[in-house]
């Protein structure tokens, strides 16, 4: 039936770029196709970059809001895609949108912090992402996530992409547009600082600590 519609459609057929044929290839062609209005190409960019966007948002906003914000980021990207002149800058451009969206989220949320028992309990429920871990482990997971979030921006983003989203250093570099060297430094310095924070938390309080 595709062809039935193709006969009537000014833009018939499958996506101009078939990413199934080039899973690891450059994304420039996909970005160009998406700029021309090819929804399928944009869907594939989403498939490739949504994990990165999820990680960047998770490093800045509550877990329960991240999924919706990921959708917002891609919707915003789709709206503005025609303005992106250098398609090779798509990764860094998308990172900027994600960071701005997270900042915007905090700007909008802070002035309206009213306590609503029902929604607060619902959010608390959503904050526990799954039942894979015990409540103790879940609390520990939140504590570790909070510790990562306390790190400088560059370190926390790289660490969350590595430890939470399961991306490797080279993948992080490719998806964020950073150099391998930068990602490597962020990961190692971030991990070093994280170990220090977790070590402090694990140690019993002493007079020195006070």
């Amino acid at each position, binding site marked *: *039936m*595709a*062809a*039935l*519609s*193709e*006969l009537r*459609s000014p*833009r*018939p057929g499958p*996506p101009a770029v*078939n990413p*199934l*044929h080039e899973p690891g290839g450059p994304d420039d062609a996909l970005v160009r196709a998406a700029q021309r209005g090819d*929804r*399928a190409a*944009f*869907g*594939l960019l*989403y*498939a490739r970059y*949504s*994990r990165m966007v*999820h*990680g960047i948002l*998770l490093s800045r906003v509550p877990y329960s809001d*991240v*999924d919706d914000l*990921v*959708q917002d980021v*891609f*919707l*915003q990207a*789709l*709206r*503005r895609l025609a*303005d992106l002149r250098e398609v090779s800058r798509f990764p860094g451009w998308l990172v900027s949108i994600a960071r701005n969206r997270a900042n915007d989220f905090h700007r909008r949320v802070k002035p309206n912090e009213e306590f609503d028992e*029902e*929604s607060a309990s*619902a959010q608390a429920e959503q904050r526990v*992402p*799954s039942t*894979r*871990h015990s409540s103790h482990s879940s609390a*520990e*997971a939140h504590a*570790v*996530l909070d510790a990562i979030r306390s790190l400088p921006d560059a370190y926390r983003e790289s660490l969350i992409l*590595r*430890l*939470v*989203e*399961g991306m*490797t*250093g080279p993948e992080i570099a490719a998806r964020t547009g950073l150099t391998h060297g930068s990602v*490597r430094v962020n*990961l*190692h310095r971030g*991990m070093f600082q994280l*170990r220090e924070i977790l070590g402090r938390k694990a140690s019993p309080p002493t007079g020195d600590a006070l």
Partner: protein
Amino acid sequence: MTTNPTDPEKEKMMTENYLWDASGAPDPEIQRLELLLADFRQVDRALVLPAKIPTAPRRFHGLLLRMPWFPRLAAAAAIVLALGVTLFFSLRPKFAPDAGPAWDVANLEGAPKIGTKTIAVNQGPAKLHVGQTIVTNADSRASLSQSDLGEIRIDPNSRLRLVQTDANRKRIQLDAGTIHAAIWAPPGTFVVDTPSAVAIDLGCAYTLQVAPDGSGTLRTTLGWVGFHLNGRDSFIPAGAMCSTRPALGPGIPYFEDATPAFRQAIAQFDSSPQDSPARSAALTMILSEARAHDALSLWHLLSRTTAPERAQVYARFAALVPPPKGVTRSGILNLDQSMLDLWWNSLGLGEISTWRYWEQSASPQPSSNSQQLLQKKQSSVQDQR
């Protein structure tokens, strides 16, 4: 850590390798953190886009700001806007949060929620308004009903939003989970948006399932359903099913009583790139396993194959279901729409003009021109029959 503890440099390098690209000896501490944090990882979720994307305003604000008259113009605009807002809020009717058309919601089991509010068992039917979302967890089920539409049962772990409800169109968005729909509204009235296709009721009962990755499966038990995405359409009559995947859209529908080899070949054909050996092998299997009943799948294959493949499909299809009067081989190979429609109608699986009507009326603002085209197309189908 499997390295020699007396060799700290080597140990450090391997740990660094693991942190960098997960190669080398795993660092137990990093592994523990990975496991601990895995629950925060992104769950594959399809991108849901509105039908029309408003484009962002072009960047001319910088130019505006440099204009000498801009501050005065902005001040005047602000005053007009303030007056307008004041007038609007003073004259508008008072807002009633539960006003407007709504569907009845019943709690079938557990604690389904509309937004964050739980639907109590004994409270009588709750209302689902346009824009509201109903969510069921692992232990809850709910049902939606509307007198001139039908009934929709919502299985556990589902998330559904009411998008539109008016005389001509009832539309919901199923983000995840399973619904069972029994619809008595006129064909084409009830529409379900999913992350990977739009399901259009053509007079039937069916089950629609959306997986966390956005892919979907539709099984029809009565009547037939159209599955549509980006110009790709699949028709699923009673007894048949069809899968759909994000970005790719609906696959080839098939009857559930087809042979396992046939069903497997359909899945392989749908997922294989064009010109690949796997696709070619799948097509060979489909054609050899096809029964007359499987003309459903062969008809869809006609328009999803290359010209050489189409000739093979035509030969097998024509052998199983001879083309009706007015349908020629060359017309089918050239994908003549009216001939394809005639052949579809001869299968007795549904009247395709119903679908053509939906296609035309689905346009947000159908022009008078498109209505004329529709009437022309319908009368041409009638004439040919």
